[in-house]
């Protein structure tokens, strides 16, 4: 039996997503920008999808732009903001635990003369509101914060950003990378009070190649791509309709956040309890983190042999972000973990489709693995 516990990397598409995609591919394959009836039928699917995703974020559908995924959404937000605010300042505030699509974007801007402040995090992986208040200055143009960290699952106090920006009298736009949180907790764009927010489809059982960017009404971003009128020129190019329809199908299939959290929370509690009983395992995720993500270190054993051992048995976990392809985790480093603990890290990420049986299979293999893999010197 395959045991897939790498749901933060990607998830299995759900039936509703597959069905919605098939129907667009087979029947409703028109171009939503075409003036004829086939075009209008496609446009109806597009706008219905927009409404569906917007509802999930409690925003208006005209505030939602489809993109090719989380990475593009983050790039449009970062570069769109700094280019719109060119004359207002050259300072960016973000955290030391962002996804590579934010970190690499601000690193590029740093090379172009921007000053980038990366907020430190405590041992639970959380930045402090106090540090944020101090970091935001009147010449800060962008504050970019992730809502839930993708490697350890820690919630970040993103809602503190608005006060920091107001107190500083800063013109900064606030961006939130909500890719890992979306569909798992209740997100309300207006109460989080951010200006832009990224979400992705394939982390919630939708297809790859599509995501969305929320842009607060009235806010002006400079596009990164130029072309037609699609997505109000912020993201031109013929819309990937099968993917967009699949995205909406996946959103419609989401359970209510509280029931999802409850179900996955029980799986997480059981898993953590059993691993602590097993011994030799340190749980790196803080107890009050998103239950979908559990980061652990297995004392003395390197991540890669563990992944290989489990993979041989069709049990799939990861050592960190799939986007980092096996590089040492900057998140665990920022949390102050020892090199040994970082080298031994595993990320187990669950979904609403995960079963207790799968957890049991994983636990058995984990126990056997600890006895058969040689510890590092």
């Amino acid at each position: 039996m395959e045991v897939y516990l790498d749901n933060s990397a990607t998830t299995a598409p759900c039936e509703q997503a597959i069905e919605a995609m098939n129907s667009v591919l087979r029947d409703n394959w028109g171009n939503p920008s075409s003036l004829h009836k086939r075009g209008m039928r496609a446009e109806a699917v597009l706008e219905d999808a927009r409404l569906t995703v917007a509802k999930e974020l409690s925003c208006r559908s005209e505030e939602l732009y489809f993109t090719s995924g989380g990475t593009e959404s983050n790039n449009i937000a970062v570069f769109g903001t700094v280019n719109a605010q060119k004359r207002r300042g050259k300072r960016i505030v973000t955290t030391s635990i962002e996804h590579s699509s934010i970190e690499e974007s601000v690193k590029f801007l740093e090379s172009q003369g921007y000053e980038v402040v990366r907020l430190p995090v405590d041992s639970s992986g959380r930045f402090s509101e106090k540090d944020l208040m101090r970091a935001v200055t009147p010449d800060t143009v962008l504050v970019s914060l992730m809502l839930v960290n993708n490697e350890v699952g820690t919630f970040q106090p993103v809602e503190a950003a608005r006060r920091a920006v107001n107190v500083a009298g800063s013109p900064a736009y606030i961006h939130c990378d909500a890719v890992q949180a979306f569909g798992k907790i209740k997100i309300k764009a207006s109460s989080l009070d951010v200006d832009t927010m990224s979400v992705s489809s394939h982390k919630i059982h939708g297809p790859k190649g599509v995501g969305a960017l929320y842009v607060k009404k009235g806010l002006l971003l400079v596009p990164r791509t130029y072309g037609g009128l699609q997505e109000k020129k912020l993201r031109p190019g013929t819309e990937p309709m099968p993917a967009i329809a699949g995205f909406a199908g996946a959103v419609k299939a989401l359970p209510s956040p509280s029931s999802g959290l409850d179900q996955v929370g029980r799986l997480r509690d059981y898993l953590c309890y059993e691993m602590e009983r097993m011994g030799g395992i340190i749980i790196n995720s803080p107890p009050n983190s998103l239950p979908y993500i559990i980061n652990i270190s297995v004392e003395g054993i390197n991540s890669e042999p563990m992944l290989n051992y489990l993979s041989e048995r069709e049990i799939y976990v990861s050592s960190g972000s799939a986007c980092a392809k096996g590089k040492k985790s900057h998140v665990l480093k920022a949390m102050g973990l020892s090199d040994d603990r970082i080298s031994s890290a595993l990320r187990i990420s669950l979904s609403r489709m995960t079963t207790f049986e799968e957890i049991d299979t994983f636990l058995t293999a984990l126990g056997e693995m600890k006895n058969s893999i040689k510890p590092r010197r």
Partner: protein
Amino acid sequence: MKEILLIKNGELALKGLNRRTFEDKLIKNIRHRLSGLGRWEYTSSQSTIMAEPLDDGIDMDEACNRLKKVFGIAAFSRAAAVEKDLGTILSCAGEYLAPQLAAAGSFKVEAKRSDKSFPLKSPEICTSVGDKLLQTFEHLRVDVHNPDIIVMVEIRDRYAYIHANQIKGAGGMPVGTAGDAALLVSGGIDSPVAGWMMAKRGLKLTAIHFASPPYTSARAEQKVHSLLRQVAEYSGRINLFVVPFTEIQERIQENCPEDLFTIIMRRLMMKTASIIAKREGCGALITGESVGQVASQTLYALVCTDAAADMPVFRPLIGMDKEEVISISRRIETFDISILPFEDCCTVFTPKHPRTRPKLEAVLKAEDALDVEALINKAAESSKLVVIDSE
């Protein structure tokens, strides 16, 4: 007008009576590389091989790219093959070489007449063709000392060939003319380069890779496949043997001193590789070692590993700097694959402080704690064959 490839042998002409064998091998290697593009006919005379496409629409640009990677070719040209008739030669030369001549300022014509029955002598051919080109391309002038372009006219048995701008070949000797050798390949930067260098000298490659699941991943082996596929563009097909090495590494770790781990492991790799190499008819081993690069490649360590092989060990990188090796690996396009971050078997059990001046005696004594024969025979026997070829 038909376009063909004129291929000049490299060092082959020097090989006296063996020349025929060398040339046959070269044609066979060229055939292997070009066959995927369509059907070809090969003929050879006077240390030139002619490859004539038999199918329409063969991608000649791609054929040239592939030829650039065949060892044993000094240079080659794309040429127009035309009837051996002065009128035809005159009209085709300008037409075939129009793009090059339009871009050039000065030119000269050289002629070779190996078919002595052709009525004009070489200097006369040059004059006629030169005159005609001067008429057609009014901007051109003749410069016999330093021309932008040399127009070659060769009168051979079947056709007259018109070409310009020789393309430099990969040089070296045809793969397979120097025998077989087994390359120890890890997945790093050095071993593919070492294999490439020895293939250039005419050795046919067999490859041996040590895998240590679960300490190494399926991706690490995949990476070795990709590296060898790149090398195979030059060396032709490679038989890769993947040797399960986990047990040997675990036994060494359990039974031998930590600071000798690497040196003993490398010795057992040499021993295992020797068994497979012999079985596969190889006369030597090839490694990517370079003196002093890492602890296991000091002179003292090399003395110890060398003693474990019972056949010659070729180390073409022995005196090269890392930068020099990297520049070759970029040229043969293995570098970007080599730097992918998967662990290979050499890094898994690495001791914190390996001995840099091991003494062979002490190493042999430490090895006594292992049943070496049984371990290496078992590893060699359970190795798995993967046939690697260029696309």
